[in-house]
């Protein structure tokens, strides 16, 4: 039973550590700074007015949603190539957080769209491909959470995860052509991609830091949780083998 006791020693009883507590405090502080700069100190936009403030959350969320997708694909590749369970858990944890961030992007985008375009939803290339991204991520999570053996779930999910970024790229390309071949991308010109400077740029910068810290904090905690779940599964194995052998010896 030595392996079992060493397992209990190696496994901590929470997903927090000094590192995550520091990141957590920094995330809270930067969120407060984001609220201050984004809502109070920065001026309204010349063409968009007050609505522009939601972009300080929207744009960084989109960026980190994409980073999450890349981590999922990279982690899946490392799992398939090197059999690295560590990377498999990174892929899983990032996919979950990328899903949350993609949902935030969609919701904030729709809230931003209502006053800007007059409707919650237009078949804009970016909105559409973000919606498709959410569906692709949900597909990955559906496979990863299958009611099946651990090995079956992780291996099949890794194939889906590996194809995630190539899929996103092809979907984006097709959706972009689909919209732009028929109408000019006028909405984009004064939309998310519009030029900003001064205090507004600085607010956006703070937005990146705040959202980035939240992303990192969530990712570390989610990863550690998944790791602990794995350890719990693993710890039972020695006992199961001993019980099975005893059953044989008794007969």
């Amino acid at each position, binding site marked *: 039973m030595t392996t079992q006791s060493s397992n209990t020693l190696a496994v901590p009883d929470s997903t927090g550590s000094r590192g995550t507590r520091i990141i957590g405090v920094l995330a809270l502080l930067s969120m407060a700074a984001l609220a201050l700069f984004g809502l109070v100190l920065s001026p309204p936009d010349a063409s968009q007015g007050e609505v522009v403030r939601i972009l300080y959350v929207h744009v960084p969320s989109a960026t980190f949603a994409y980073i999450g997708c890349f981590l999922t694909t990279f982690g899946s590749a490392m799992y*398939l190539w090197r059999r690295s369970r560590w990377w498999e858990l990174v892929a899983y944890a990032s996919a979950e957080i990328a899903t949350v961030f993609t949902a935030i992007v969609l919701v904030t985008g729709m809230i931003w769209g209502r006053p800007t375009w007059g409707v919650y939803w237009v078949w804009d290339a970016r909105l559409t491909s973000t919606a*498709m991204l959410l*569906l*692709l991520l*949900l*597909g990955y999570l*559906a*496979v990863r959470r*299958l*009611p*099946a*053996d651990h*090995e*079956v779930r992780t*291996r*099949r999910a890794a*194939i*889906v995860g*590996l*194809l995630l970024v*190539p*899929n996103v790229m*092809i*979907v984006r*390309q*097709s*959706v972009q*052509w*689909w919209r732009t*071949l028929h109408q000019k991308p006028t909405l984009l010109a004064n939309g998310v991609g519009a030029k900003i400077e001064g205090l507004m740029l600085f607010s956006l910068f703070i937005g990146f830091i705040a959202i980035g810290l939240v992303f990192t904090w969530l990712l570390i905690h989610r990863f550690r949780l998944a790791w602990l779940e794995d350890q719990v599964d693993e710890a039972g194995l020695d006992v199961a083998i001993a019980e099975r052998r005893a059953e044989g010896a008794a007969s």
Partner: protein
Amino acid sequence: MLHDALLIAGKDLRLELRSRVALNQVLPFALLVLVLFAFALDPDKSALTQATPGLYWIAVLFSALLALQRSFAIEAADGNRDALRLSGLDPAGIFVGKVLAVSVQLIVLEMLLGIGVAVLYTTRIEGWGLLIVTSVIATASIAAAGTLFGVLAAGLRVRETLLPLLLLPVLAPVLIGSTRAFEAALNGSPSEGWPWVGLMSVFALLYIVAGVLGFGPLLEES
């Protein structure tokens, strides 16, 4: 690999010839979808004719889902997966063989569905070159992605619900591309259609490579 692929494709097609599931069930379903579209969209207004390419490919896509479910249902029964793993067949060959068999069935279905559209929706068919190339590439894309996700969902209790969830978002570019290319061909401006054929070729290539490499690992640990 080619020998194994032809063996598998031959077996799947022979099985279809004997059981006639695609002929007796999938094809009528596809035609039924065409009729349902006419009920949903008033056929006297121009909506139906304008939407014809999209409706055609939606009908193909849904029929393809049924054909793919069938393609893996025949391997799901009674230890076939074990037998395939023990057979010594190259997994890449199994993948290519199943893609071939599904593609052949889909091409036949598309031709009959095309006749159905021409008759029921009085579509005048033009731009044959683009139509044929689009059909071949789109079919290869659907079959390749469908076979990869088909084996991914195979052997699970939730396979019927999982396959559409995984496959349909992934096939969105193929639906957009084949529809636009058909529109371009029917409108007499095929030059607008060829970039879509290019995009779908990239898609088909990606999934054929992924299938050839990934089918082995997916066949294990069922």
